[in-house]
């Protein structure tokens, strides 16, 4: 719809707003939307406000009893939040979480698109490759992360065995924070590529082949075609995956928790592992709820600005 038409429509709508017309206009939209909305609402509102309440309280093991018996809480205003933000470790952990997220998502998306492009071409055994490459996503995470942990063992792990074969001395992966972080990155990147690959594969199908034909005729190389046709046209489909990928990676408890459980405790924590420990090991529920709210706000602010930025393009 062109700009002048839109303006006209808007002003005439303002002038003659009626509920009946509104409903008739948007009935289809709201009706189609309602079921999904209700289902998600069910799981969003109550837990969110439950934690919202806790965040302003000092709920811990000692006053848990009153809370369970009579829903009584002692409110302490924004004390939790102040305490969290003034802890020096908070900023370090936040920085680490951001680095963790950025590196992971960039790797996931790049490799995902890379494999999708290759697998979309005319190649033998395509479907076999595709199915095998999905295995990291398909296999239950708990045991495969533990297997990876074993693979990073200094003496017996497969990774060092391989390195030694090519002449590199073994690395004590899970004994230092720096190498431990790299190990965690390797595992999580391994886990996350198939998902992005699938999304990209689907997205590639939405690109009209005529574009490529035209580019061929114009003499564009494969690389130029990818750069100017494929990548831009993948955007609408990759965007939701990237946003959610960022959110999931930011909040990924399992990989770091399992890998560092008795190797690098507290040393390469990201925000969620810290929250988990406060809540479930120290019973600091008020504190953990406040922390979770902070994480939530960080992600919300980022998501909104990111969406705006992309749409402004």
């Amino acid at each position, binding site marked *: 719809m062109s700009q002048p038409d839109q303006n006209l429509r808007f002003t005439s709508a303002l002038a003659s707003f009626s509920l009946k017309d509104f409903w008739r206009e948007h009935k289809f939209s709201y009706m189609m939307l309602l079921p999904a909305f209700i289902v998600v609402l069910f799981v969003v509102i109550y837990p969110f406000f439950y934690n919202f309440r806790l965040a302003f309280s000092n709920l811990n093991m000692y006053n848990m009893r009153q809370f369970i018996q009579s829903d009584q809480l002692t409110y302490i205003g924004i004390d939790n939040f102040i305490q969290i933000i003034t802890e020096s470790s908070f900023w370090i952990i936040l920085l680490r979480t951001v680095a963790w997220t950025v590196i992971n998502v960039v790797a996931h998306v790049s490799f995902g698109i890379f494999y999708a492009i290759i697998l979309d071409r005319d190649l033998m055994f395509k479907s076999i490759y595709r199915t095998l490459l999905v295995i990291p996503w398909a296999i239950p995470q708990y045991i495969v992360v533990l297997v990876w942990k074993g693979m990073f063992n200094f003496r017996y792990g497969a990774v060092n065995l391989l390195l030694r074969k090519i002449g590199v001395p073994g690395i004590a992966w899970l004994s230092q924070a720096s190498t431990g972080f790299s190990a965690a990155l390797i595992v999580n990147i391994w886990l996350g590529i198939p998902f992005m690959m699938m999304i990209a594969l689907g997205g590639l199908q939405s690109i009209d082949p005529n574009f490529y034909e035209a580019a061929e005729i114009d003499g564009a190389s494969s690389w130029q075609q990818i750069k100017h046709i494929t990548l831009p046209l993948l955007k609408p489909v990759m965007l939701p995956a990237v946003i959610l990928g960022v959110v999931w990676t930011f909040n990924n408890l399992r990989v770091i928790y399992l890998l560092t459980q008795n*190797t690098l405790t507290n040393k390469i924590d990201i925000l969620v592992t810290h929250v988990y420990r406060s809540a479930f090991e120290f019973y600091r529920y008020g504190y953990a709820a406040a922390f979770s709210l902070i994480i939530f706000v960080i992600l919300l602010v980022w998501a909104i600005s990111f969406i705006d930025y992309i749409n402004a393009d």
Partner: protein
Amino acid sequence: MRKSIFTVSILVLALSLIFSVSAAAQQNLDKKELTKEVTLKFWETLDVTLDESLLDSLIKKFEKKYPNITVERTHSGSVEDLRQNTQTAYMGGQGPDVVWSPFDHVGPFSIMGIAQPLNELMSQEMKDKYIDAALPGMSLRGETYGVPVTMGNHLMLMYNKNIVDQAPETWSELIEVAKANTIDEDGDGLVDKYGLAYNLNEPFWWAAFHGGFGGWVFDEEYNPTLNTKATVDSLEFVHSLKFEHEIVPKESDYDLMDSLFKEGNVAFIINGDWSIEGYKNAKNIDLGVAPIPKFEKTGKYGQPMTSGYGLIMLSDLPRQKQIAVMKFIDFITSTAAQELFVENNFLPSNKQAYGLPQIQNDPIMRGSAKQLRLGKPMPIVPEMRGIWDAVRPALQSVMSDDLTPEAAAEQMQQEAEENIKSMQ
């Protein structure tokens, strides 16, 4: 005269009132009759292998004895899971009725009001069934919150008689033997067989060394006492095992230690009573059990922390369920039932069970019992969490040579104090 008779009668009346009141307070639930049909929800985290052979067979016998009680058993994958699930379910009003817990669940559960105080519910006869160390193991602040079923959960020295024929008395002996058994078989520069393996970075294992050097984690008021000579000495000691004597693998967690031992690639390990059955059944192992050796510096044997597993009744149960749970607890800790636990290499809580031939005659059980006597009960106060969480990173740093024992001891103390403060 009349006055004194009057005074005496008042006294007698008062005294008898007092006695009758306290007698009424003792409810002796284990002796009461059940009047309704009851279904008990029993959550446990026993070893998978024992669920069916041990628990289910006991449950069947129990249900036969009390036809109007049905027991629904639910298994949890780990102690952590069990604790969290019990809490979550309880808060949602759907909690279990009785839970199989390690002793240290008593700390948080009692404070949060999840565990039912049992002093007044148990009859004296039932209380007298147990060895002296049992009920105090699950009591805090003068009140009992659970009934122990197995005692121990303690670490001991285990060895493979296919590789070494006896256990050494002192650590220098062990180190010597271990060195001789740390071999690079194929000459590729990498060790293939180790003399010793244990869970290097886990505080629970280090605690045995700490105790052997005379250290302890708390003072009487449960303030942390980690910045001591004993801490520094024990940290130095475990550090030397890896870096100086090189008898342990560079990185060894529980699963690796376990796998190595089962493969027959390590002579000595330090592991707990829960692993005995698995090793007895392993093809490559001829199992021997002994106390953790003496440290030359202090003349003390290794002093592992001991605890155990028991049954906790959840609070706010209706009276009939309470009776049913009490009977269940009574049954599981009866001598006949305890025999099954002993057969699976656990030390019982029931006094009489200690007379069983399995304990008297089996050298492995004797070794386990010997070690238990040399151990010290682990504090079950929730502050222990703060200790473990402070020890763990410092221990890890010492074992990767990133922190000196002195600095580590200071760090542990500071973090423990912070952790405990944050819990309040």
